[in-house]
């Protein structure tokens, strides 16, 4: 039972990430009938933007009580991730897709594939192809201030990283836990740190306090963020002038012009909002799975596309439902199969795609249209 619950939570958080990505797929398809295959790369760039902010931010404790600085750091990183993805999407739309407006769908589709490959390769050039470990949302405490924390326990962990040289002369990175929820920080531990060096031979100068949230708590945060984003998106689409304009352009671009709507602006904004959500998905992915690299957008992007098709492409609730369903299936099915099948995890999504295309091609929430891509 506990195993089932754990796997269910894992599936839900994976599904939430798919949902975050699928929303952008479905919104862009809804408005210009384009499957934007570069969407997975927006997600990747978001993950990298979050990475750089979290690496740089040893958010100092500006006198705030314990978990707040962490939440602040995470919030800033998430915003940076979302904005980077959003801005990139606006640029891509302007340079690559807008000139093709009015040309055949296949031309736009191939361009989207091209943009996807292009962004992956730019990613390699800019970020290098190496996998990077994702930093945790953590707070840096300088040794000068450490005295204030002696005797305290921490909801997360307090730890230091430093380099030790073995008798054979080989350097290796060590992570030492100084304190935690059950273990108070001691003056001795702080005193010892003064003699530790980092990889460059400099004194370490301080230690980190990590996120106080448990695995389950993090999953719940992810679910709540998705619910919140979905709620805000729903309000945007159904309760604002922009949302009405979006739906009008999606239904009949020419009639929308006759209402005075600049459809190019609405389309651009739709790309922004969709990629903004993918950026949030990117940072959650990084925090959750711990590794990022420039090709990371490919598989999740493809899965999210499948999720959007399952939900009914063009449907916003469909994207959320399809994403969550796919994430849960993808975790639960291999979890209950003999372990030699665990390598077939990715097959689940594709089998689900084939099944939906055979039995309900318009998707679970979609209305039937004659022709689709």
């Amino acid at each position, binding site marked *: 039972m506990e195993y089932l619950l754990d796997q269910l939570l894992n599936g839900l958080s994976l599904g939430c990430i798919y949902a975050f990505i699928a929303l952008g797929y479905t919104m862009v398809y809804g408005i210009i009938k384009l499957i934007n295959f570069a969407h997975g790369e927006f997600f990747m760039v978001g993950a990298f933007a979050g990475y750089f902010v979290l690496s740089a931010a040893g958010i100092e404790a500006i006198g705030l009580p314990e978990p707040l600085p962490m939440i602040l750091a995470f919030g800033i990183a998430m915003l940076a991730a979302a904005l980077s993805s959003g801005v990139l999407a606006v640029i891509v739309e302007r340079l690559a897709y807008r000139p093709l407006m009015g040309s055949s769908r296949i031309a736009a589709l191939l361009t989207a594939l091209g943009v996807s490959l292009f962004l992956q390769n730019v990613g390699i050039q800019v970020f290098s192809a190496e996998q990077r470990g994702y930093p945790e949302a953590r707070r840096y405490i300088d040794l000068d201030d450490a005295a204030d924390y002696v005797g305290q326990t921490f909801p997360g962990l307090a730890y230091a990283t430093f380099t030790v040289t073995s008798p054979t002369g080989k350097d290796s990175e060590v992570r030492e836990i100084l304190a935690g929820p059950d273990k108070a920080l001691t003056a001795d531990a702080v005193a010892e740190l003064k003699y530790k060096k980092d990889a460059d031979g400099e004194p370490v100068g301080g230690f980190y306090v990590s996120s106080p949230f448990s695995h389950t708590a993090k999953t719940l945060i992810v679910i709540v963020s998705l619910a919140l984003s979905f709620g805000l998106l729903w309000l945007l689409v159904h309760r604002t002038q922009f949302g*009405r304009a979006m739906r009008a352009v999606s*239904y*009949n671009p*020419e*009639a929308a012009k*006759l209402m005075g709507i*600049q459809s190019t602006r609405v389309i651009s904004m739709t790309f922004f909002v969709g990629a903004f959500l993918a950026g949030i998905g990117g940072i959650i992915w990084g925090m959750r799975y711990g590794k990022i690299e420039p090709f990371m957008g490919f598989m999740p992007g493809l899965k999210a596309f499948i999720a959007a098709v399952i939900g009914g492409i063009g449907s916003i609730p469909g994207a959320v439902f399809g994403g969550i369903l796919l994430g849960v299936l993808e975790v639960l099915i291999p979890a209950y199969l003999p372990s030699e099948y665990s390598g077939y995890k990715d097959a689940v999504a594709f089998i689900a795609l084939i099944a939906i295309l055979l039995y309900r091609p318009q998707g679970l929430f979609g209305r039937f249209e004659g022709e689709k891509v």
Partner: protein
Amino acid sequence: MLEVKDIHVYYDAIHALKGVSLEVREGEIVTLIGANGAGKTTTLRAIMGLNPPREGAVVYAGQDVAKLDTPGRVGAGLILCPEGRQIFANLTVHENLRIGAFLRRDVARIERDIDEVYGFFPRLRERDKQLGGTLSGGEQQMLAMGRAMLSSPKMLLLDEPSMGLAPLFVKQIFEMIETIRSRGTTILLVEQNAHAALKIADRAYVMETGVITLSGPAAELAANPEVRDAYLGV
């Protein structure tokens, strides 16, 4: 108010408008009648910038509008209520009206104006939250007219507002057109119901295969034997 000067419009190789000129003065109802395929809709689309003329000019409120795109023309008060209604089927009746007011800044008055449209067409009020696509043809035409009114038109172009409607609806729509004019909106009306159109119009133009063949006061054209023969079915 609106002057169309010798415009030529092409669809690829097809020369659809071959030098059309017409004028609508402030406060007038002018009707443009003619057979299917004569180029009436194309003329309205050219005025709105949806099919920009290759030659000739459209002058609105004293200015050549060539530099304005379609939304820009809408912003200047030049509104087209298009053929086939073009209701947003995926928006509710209320949202369709709201989107008509997309460019308006006087947000506080929009709800009041919507209420007024509902006063004219009580059936729309009953269907306030229904999707536009679920309305009957007549209701959709009312909605299209209401939506155009919400755009605060100074110059309203109406393309076949009575097409396919039951006689009761046709009567309501024509009453509505006169009401809109009485509030200071100038109207260019394209109609195949030439009888009704000539009755409410001040002046009229007759169009055949891309050119204007006749023009004059509406009453005069209504009495013209050629017009009576070809368009009034008498």
